[in-house]
C-alpha cells in the first residue's frame, strides 16, 4: 500500500482526502440536521427518533468509527496543509488585493480565506458539543434521567452554551459554504455546465447549515424564561430539585 500512501501524501493527494472526508462530513450534517429538526415537531417524535437510532447498535458503532476517523483525518490534514501553505509563502506582502471581479465579499473576509480559522472554531464547538451531549461532562446530575428532548432543552437554555452553539453553527456554515464546492473541484468534478450550480448550492448549503443549527439555541433562548428562573445554578443544582419532565412543558412554539 506504499503507492497509495505516497500518492495521498502529495499536495493533490491530501486534498483528495480532505475532499472525501469533507463530503462525508457534509452528508453527516444533512442527517444530523434532519434529525434535529424533529425537535420542532415535539418531544415525543424527537424521543422516538433518538431511541430508534440508539437501538441500531451495529449501525451506530460503524457510523461512529467512520465519523471519528473522518473528523480526525480532516483535522490532521488541515493542520498539515496549513503548515505547508504558510511555509510556502515565506514572506508576506506589504499589500495584497484580489483581482477577482466576481467577489461578493472582500477577499480577506471570504469563507475560503477563513477555512482553517472557521474549522478551528468548529473544532472547539465540536469538543463542547460532544462533552455536553455524548459525555455529559460538567453537568453533574442535571442531565441524569432526562429524555433526549429534555436534555437538549437543559443544555441549550444555558446562556453560555447558547452563544457557543450559535457561533459554532455560523462558523460551520461559513466553512461548508466554500468547502462543499471546493471538494468537487479537488476531486476533479468540474464542468462549465454545472460549476455555477455547484458553487451556489454550496453557498445555499452553508446558509441552511448555519441557520438550521443556530436556530435551536436562538429560538430556545428567545422563547424560554431567563436561565436563572428555569434552571437556577445549572451546574450546582442538586439532583433532588431537578424536574425530569420539566423540558416537556417547554415545547417550541412552532
Amino acid at each position: 500500500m506504499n503507492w497509495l500512501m505516497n500518492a495521498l501524501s502529495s499536495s493533490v493527494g491530501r486534498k483528495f482526502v480532505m475532499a472525501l472526508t469533507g463530503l462525508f462530513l457534509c452528508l453527516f450534517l444533512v442527517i444530523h440536521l434532519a434529525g434535529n429538526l424533529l425537535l420542532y415537531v415535539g418531544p415525543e417524535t424527537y424521543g422516538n427518533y433518538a431511541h430508534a437510532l440508539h437501538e441500531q447498535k451495529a449501525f451506530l458503532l460503524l457510523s461512529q468509527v467512520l465519523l471519528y476517523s473522518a473528523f480526525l483525518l480532516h483535522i490532521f490534514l488541515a493542520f498539515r496543509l496549513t503548515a505547508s501553505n504558510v511555509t510556502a509563502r515565506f514572506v508576506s506582502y506589504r499589500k495584497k488585493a484580489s483581482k477577482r471581479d466576481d467577489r461578493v465579499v472582500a477577499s480577506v473576509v471570504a469563507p475560503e480565506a477563513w477555512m482553517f480559522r472557521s474549522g478551528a472554531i468548529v473544532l472547539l464547538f465540536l469538543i463542547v458539543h460532544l462533552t455536553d451531549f455524548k459525555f455529559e461532562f460538567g453537568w453533574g446530575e442535571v442531565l441524569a434521567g432526562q429524555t433526549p428532548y429534555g436534555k437538549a432543552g437543559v443544555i441549550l437554555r444555558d446562556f453560555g452554551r447558547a452563544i457557543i452553539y450559535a457561533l459554532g453553527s455560523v462558523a460551520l456554515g461559513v466553512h461548508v459554504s466554500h468547502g462543499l464546492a471546493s471538494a468537487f473541484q479537488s476531486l476533479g468534478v468540474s464542468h462549465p455546465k454545472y460549476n455555477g450550480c455547484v458553487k451556489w448550492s454550496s453557498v445555499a448549503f452553508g446558509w441552511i447549515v448555519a441557520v438550521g443549527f443556530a436556530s435551536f439555541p436562538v429560538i430556545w433562548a428567545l422563547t424560554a424564561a431567563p436561565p436563572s428562573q428555569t434552571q437556577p445554578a445549572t451546574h450546582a443544582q442538586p439532583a433532588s430539585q431537578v424536574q425530569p419532565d420539566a423540558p416537556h412543558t417547554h415545547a417550541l412554539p412552532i
Partner: protein
Amino acid sequence: MTNPAKKRLSLHLRIWRQSRTDEAGEFRDYQLQDISPDMSFLEMLDILNQQLIEQGEAPVAFDHDCREGICGTCGMMINGQAHGPDHETTTCQLHMRHFNDGDTIIIEPWRARAFPVLRDLIVNRSAFDRIIQAGGYVSIKTGQAPEGNANLIPQQHQEGSLDAAACIGCGACVAACKNASAMLFTAAKVSHFVQLPQGAPERTKRVLAMINQHDEEGFGACTNTSECEAACPAAVSVSHIARLNREYLKAMLTATD
C-alpha cells in the same frame, strides 16, 4: 478619434530593494514627476532608473524581455495585485493610465519560498523549469515532418490544449495564491499535453512526476480560491486544475511503477 490626453502624473513609489538573496531587503520611497499616462509600467520604471543612475544610486532591478506581453519574463506585485490592476495583462503591457495623479504605488517581488529574490524585483523562477523537466515534455522520434492528418485531433481538444498552452510561466499564479501554490502552472502543462494524442502515452508518469516536483520545490497546496485564474495574464482557467486532479486520481490508481 483620440481621447483627450490624461493629465501627466506625479507618483510616489514604494519599492522593495534587496541587493542579494541572502541579505535583508527594505522598502524605499521615490518620487516621480511628469509621467505620461501612455507609458507602460516598465517605461515608468525606466524613467525612475535613469533618475537613480543620475543620482548615483543603483537602479531598480526588474525582469523584462519582449515587452509585448508574451514572453512571461516580467512580473511584480503592484499594489498587492500580480501584474497590477488590469486583467489578462502582463506588467509590461500595463499602462500608467490605470493610475491617478498623486497615487502611491507599492511594488514588491513575487513572494514565495520557491521563488527566492535575486535582486530587488527579480526572483529566481527556475523551480518552474524543474517542474517542466520532471514531465512537461513528450518523447517522440524526430525526423521528417509527419503527415498532418496522421493524428486526427478533435477541434475542442485542440482548443482546450491551446488554452492551457497559453501559460507563459510568469509566476503570477504563485504570487496571487494565498498558499503560494503553483497548481495553475503545473495544471496548464499537464492539461496542455494530456488533451493531445502525442501526450497520452506519458500521461500517468507525467502528472505524478510534476506534482512530486511541485511539492519538492516548496509550493503550497491549492485551496480553490481562483485568485490564480484572476491574476493570470494568459487567462488560464482553474478548470485545468480540475483536469490535473482527475489525471492525478487516474494515475494514482493505475500507475504500474
